[in-house]
């Protein structure tokens, strides 16, 4: 039996929770579908069960007390905009959900760039490593290097120090002058500046190096040490874990599959009510531009109110959104990736980790499509989420359309979605199911 809701929110992070709570205030029937075992997204990972910031606790309480149906551990593998139906898969079943209005709050993931040794166990994302620690990985006494770029590095380092890790270094690829310019612009956001200072205080025993990035990781069966470049000099640091990511990229696979228009910077384009060019499909949070948790919740609230047809409540939030978009713009400028990062991978470094395709193999081609067809790069289970983003940075390639299933799915799920022929026949290319399992 298909359940239908007036408003369906995809993603249970800050934007999704705020959207659902706001929409429910207009007495709409609202559902949230979230891929994770608990709501909270990545930044509030672990949900209400864990110690969370005050703002998170408030939102969790509001979500619990609102009339919102939450589906945990449910990933949307197909969406049919004309039938207004989604297909969601859990580890046990596949089920359809109908909607009148849809709010996409699919969040962001970290950008990973290949360098020799990046496939070794214990080389992980920065937020990814934090997520594992939040999920119960003990790290007391472990030696960790935090590397990459963005404000997240400081937050991760502070969290790890709080949990007893020995953070050997924080390697920020940006220069000290661009960080200084960013700090100046942060003066307009005293709360955020205080937060940054407190994070730095918590991680004060870790050296914070600017113009610094990982060059290679070493180890026999798992990570033993890394070589970093620091202001032009190479230095080897022994460590148990490398937590490394080059800031965030939006999860736009589902919006793209629904036909939402992306702007030049590959973010989902929306109007002032967070509505995409598709009537009835809204988008909020990181997919519309990387802006952090405050901007995400504001956009989520606007989308929720707008989808529930309360435009007045939505419009009240426009000034707050404009303010936090300024911070997002400053962040983008400060943590722009330096071109040297595109030269770290060697010819024999795997670019595609799913199919073990080397940089050399991929470089023989002049487009993502050609590389995919000839090398299987991007054809594995991650469907190009990791290597596609890296190839976009390395070669400037346009990573094209998304097709169903949005995630690898079980055969029974593929059978269920292939019965939705209406959407498949509107695809510009013939449907090709890739990454299907069993």
């Amino acid at each position, binding site marked *: 039996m298909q359940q239908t809701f007036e408003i369906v929110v995809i993603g249970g992070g800050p934007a999704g929770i705020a959207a659902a709570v706001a929409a429910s205030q207009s007495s709409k029937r609202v559902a949230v579908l979230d*891929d*994770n*075992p608990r709501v909270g997204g*990545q930044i509030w990972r*672990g949900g209400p*069960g*864990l110690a969370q910031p005050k703002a998170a606790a408030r939102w969790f309480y509001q979500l619990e007390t609102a009339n919102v149906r939450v589906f945990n*551990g449910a*990933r949307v593998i197909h969406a049919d905009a004309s039938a207004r139906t989604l297909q969601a898969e859990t*580890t046990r079943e596949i089920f359809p959900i109908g909607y009148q209005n849809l709010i996409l709050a699919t969040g962001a*993931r*970290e950008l*990973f760039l290949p360098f020799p040794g990046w*496939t070794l*166990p*214990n*080389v*992980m*994302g920065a*937020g*990814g*490593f934090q*997520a*594992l620690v939040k*999920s*119960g*990985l*003990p790290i007391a006494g472990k030696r960790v290097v935090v590397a990459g770029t963005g404000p997240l590095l400081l937050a991760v380092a502070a969290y790890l120090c709080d949990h007893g890790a020995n953070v050997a270094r924080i390697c920020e690829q940006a220069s000290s002058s661009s960080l200084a310019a960013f700090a100046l612009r942060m003066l307009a956001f005293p709360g955020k500046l205080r937060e940054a200072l407190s994070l730095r205080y918590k991680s004060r025993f870790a050296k914070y190096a600017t113009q610094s990035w990982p060059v290679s990781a070493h180890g026999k*069966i*798992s990570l033993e040490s890394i070589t970093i470049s620091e202001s032009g000099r190479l230095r080897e640091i022994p460590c148990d874990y490398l937590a490394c990511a080059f800031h965030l990229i939006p*999860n736009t696979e589902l919006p793209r599959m629904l036909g939402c228009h992306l702007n030049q910077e590959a973010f989902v384009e929306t109007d002032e009510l967070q509505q995409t060019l598709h009537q009835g499909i809204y988008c909020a949070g990181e997919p519309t531009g990387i802006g952090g948790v405050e901007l995400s919740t504001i956009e989520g609230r606007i989308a929720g109110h707008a989808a529930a047809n309360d435009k007045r409540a939505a419009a009240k939030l426009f000034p707050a959104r404009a303010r936090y978009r300024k911070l997002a713009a400053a962040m983008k400028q400060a943590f722009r990736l330096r071109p040297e990062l595109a030269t770290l991978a060697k010819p024999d470094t795997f670019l595609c*980790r*799913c*199919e*073990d395709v080397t940089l050399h193999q991929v470089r023989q081609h002049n487009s993502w499509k050609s590389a995919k067809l000839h090398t299987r790069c991007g054809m*594995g*289970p*991650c469907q190009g*989420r*990791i290597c596609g983003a890296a190839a976009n940075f390395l070669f400037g390639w346009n990573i094209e359309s998304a097709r169903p299933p949005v995630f*690898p799915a079980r055969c029974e799920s593929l059978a269920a979605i292939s019965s939705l022929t209406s959407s498949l026949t509107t695809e510009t290319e013939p449907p090709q199911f890739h990454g299907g*399992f*069993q």
Partner: protein
Amino acid sequence: MPENVTVYVNDLPVTVPTGATVAVAVMLSSNVCRTSVSGEPRAPLCAMGACFECRVEINEVRHLRSCQVACEPQMKIKVGR
């Protein structure tokens, strides 16, 4: 709710805090989730459900992302395939 959960990774018991994901249980035991197509050991990368490096078999269902599944008592996890 009990404080800890015991699961089995390739038949060896591992005890993790309640709420821990399967990825954590694997990292505390074999530290390898899967073997890549060219034979390399692989472990979690993104830990957020995007990269699929952490996929394992859980209770005879293959290719599940261990970072997205919470441990349940007596779960049988197979890694290294």
